[in-house]
């Protein structure tokens, strides 16, 4: 049972989390992965590589921008930064996600007692 609880994210979830992380501070890919894993208490099991297609989508949509630089560990890294459009997009996504989450919880709540 415990094994099967690891489920795929819904489309757009990864992008949303990336944008949220970048809102706090610009970061490169590896740091983003680290950040998301720590924040989620390792509950989300995401293939690290799947970050990159998401980042490319965000780049293409001009929601983030990227720049090559040198990291604190003195490594050549590509740092991503959220844009103004990215911020707006994130607000919208979060509010629509919250509505969806609320809806799902409402549906699931009364059923919980019966299931146990």
């Amino acid at each position: 049972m415990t094994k099967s609880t690891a489920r795929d994210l819904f489309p757009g979830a990864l992008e949303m989390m990336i944008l949220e992380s970048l809102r706090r501070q610009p970061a490169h890919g590896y740091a983003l992965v680290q950040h998301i894993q720590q924040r989620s208490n390792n509950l989300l099991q995401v293939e690290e590589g799947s970050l990159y297609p998401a980042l490319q989508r965000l780049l293409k949509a001009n929601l983030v921008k990227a720049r090559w630089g040198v990291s604190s560990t003195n490594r050549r890294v590509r740092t991503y930064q959220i844009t103004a459009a990215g911020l707006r997009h994130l607000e919208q996504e979060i509010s629509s996600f919250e509505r969806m989450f609320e809806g799902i919880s409402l549906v699931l709540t009364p059923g919980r007692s019966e299931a146990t």
Partner: protein
Amino acid sequence: MNWLLDIFRRRRIYGDLAEEMRIHLEERTEQFANEGMSRKEAEQAARRAFGNSTLLEERSREVWRMPFVESFGTDLKLVFRRLGKSPGFAATVILTLAIGIGANTAVFSVTNSVLFRPLPYPDAEQLVAIRLIAPGAAGLADFSSGLRLSSSMYFTFAEQKRTFQSFGVWNTGTASVTGVDQPHEVHTAWISDGVLQALSVPPVLGRWLLPADQDPHGAKPVMLSYGYWQRRFGGDRSVIGRSIAIDGQSRQIVGVMPKGFELVNAEFDVITPFAFDRNKQQLAGFGLQGIARLKPGIPIAQANEDVKRMLPIWEDSWPSGVKGFNPHFYEKNWKIAPAIRPLKQEVIGSVGNVLWVVMATIGVVMLIACTNVANLLLVRADGRQQELAVRAALGASRGRIAWELLLESVALGLIGGVLGIGIAYEGLRLLAAIGPADLPRLGEISLDGRSLWFTLALSLLSGLLFGSIPVLKYVGARMPTALRGAGRTVSVSRERQRSRDLLVVAQVAMALVLLVSAMLMIRTFQALRHVEPGFSQPEHLQTMRISIPPSLVPDPQMVTRMQNNIVDKLAAIPGVTSVGFADAMPMEGIESNWNGIQIEGKKSDETAPMRLFRYVSPGFFHTSGTRMIAGRELTWTEIYGRRPVAIISENLARESWGSASAALHKRLQDLPDTPWFEVVGVVEDVHVNGVQEKAPAIVYWPSMVEGIYGPHTFGATRGATFVVRSDRAGTEAFLSEIQQGVWSVNPSLPLASVRTMQEIYSQSLARTSFTLVMLGIAGSMALVLGIIGIYGVISYAVSQRTREIGIRLALGEQRGRLRWMFVRSALVLTGCGLAIGLAAAAGLVGLMKSLLYGVSPMDPVTYLSVLMVLAASAVLASYLPARRAAAVNPVEALRAE
């Protein structure tokens, strides 16, 4: 334009991406190493955590692409690269498809141009041919597909019409033109007012013929066809107002019709107006064709009602010319009734049947070609099976693999289609050159937009059709089996061979249907060749038309003298055995007169059966090789003496008096109050409308005759076809001697339609021989493709079973038995195909019944011979690979492991 920029930026983007991902892995590896893993373990753990880097990189790159277009482009590139690697396969498939699609496109273009496209007149769907039927007029159906209109009907219909916008009558004929360089014969179209108005095609120069031009006492105008204007007047625009003499009548040129304009289905050089004299009209004289433009929205049924309403008016309006004639005779006894039909149907005639059959045949050839290509693809996919299985195991989806296979076959189809258009274009040029002259609308045939759409659709469809067979076979297969099967120790499974077997069965079945229909056409042709046409050795019969217009020789007696002189002059030419003439030769397509003929002593009622009339000279039958059954030919003395004598056809003699000899010295009569004619000879039946038509009953009158068409009328046949029997017929020198001979009698007599009887005869068979050639080509293509199919399947089976054969041989199998095993498997397939084909053929050949003559659609000879040919071909096609199988060296076959 963002996407354009993207393409330029892309290289850098991809570079950044790869770099970034590499750094990520490095960082992760370092992290794990710091946590105490060995370098190697750390690398592996990092990769596991990262996921499938190739796939993820591909997904990331895809973000920057127009996914559909680009992956399509890449796939296409792959397809071409793969095809380039097997040029033999690609060339075979493309050539097969190009020929198949080309043939189909060509035939479709013909069908489209002839059957589907509207006639080249404005609002052509409103145009109708006014035809009448007269089921009560006995004998009429023998030589005419209906009753034509009379000139009195023209007056009634034109004045009383309610459903027609315009109505007119027309006819065609020939006339001689003098006054423009040499005297020559032209094709004339005679029209009444209303014909040009109905067709609504304006002249390219000058004006139409107008109602005023119909005045029998008024000016005499003429219009020219575009072709004649170009040929004779070099396209000179000042011809308007000039005069030419047509049959000795001076006529002023008032207009020129545009290029390509045809009067219904008639080509013509000049258009002249009828000038009916209203005061001299009678009911009878049914020789005109009617044409009308319906008022918008009027259905044909309503137009028929309109004509039905006008027929009694017509009967009451005009005299019959015969005393005591009941004016409602035509309605009561002949049961005359309208049978209007669309003008298009009139133009196309019965050629629709031929085209549909040819189209279906060529379509089946295409299907056979597709099965052959499918077979090749199956073999090819077999070779790729391991690759496909590996790819599936590595995560390629079934849809992806199916898409690639289909893309390859559709690409093949489209390349074949492009080449096919070239082939169709050439084919149509060839067709225009060799096609039957009686194919209507031949000049209009072209590759148009619709044909190109057809080609595209056909290419795509055939690509999908033959492409889907390997797709169904291999994409649906369970991959683990496929992977294992690709190992070397397994012989070919039955399952793999089965779809190829099915294709061969289908091929044999379709080839059988085609061969049966081709064979039926051959049998039809044979049957037609065995019909005695009513003349002999047509290749030695030189024919030509000579008309003597009244303006040149007014007196009929003098006309006959002149014709007699021509006969004598031509008979004196070295190598000529005999000479004669008639108003028309059989199968020449010249309209003949006919009327009801009374037999003396039989009860005289008003419905005497219709008989065809011909007017002949002495010696005509001897010259053309028509056998005299009884009695003798006419003599010049009888002709000059205007003696009431006639010759009749054998079937008329039998019908009227029981036998040919009994008919001699009996008498017959055309109209009441005209003289009785004595039968002096009976000749064999002549198939005047072509050998496939029944020979009609014919009365042969003397070339100069008195008393037909009423008492005291008398006339000579002015337009005559002369026939000369000679071994030299058709040679250049002979023709110029004939020309000299005729001109020595009168230098202003034009010779027209100079050809041998063989040409006339062949032309009458043109449609049948055209169908025969088309079906013959289709049938042989089917046979060859079928043989290739059987050969291919058996030899592939042999190559796949080499190991098994080796084992069998090593265990002591006889080589003869081994050969028989493969031949037998081919025969089993062929047998299944033949059984299915027989059932299909029996159902389908009924459709071509109207094209057959003298042979039943179930003709046993046809079926037996086709079965034998196919079975023999199957044995041959399988024997060659079977021999190869038996020649296998067991040691080598097993060592190849």
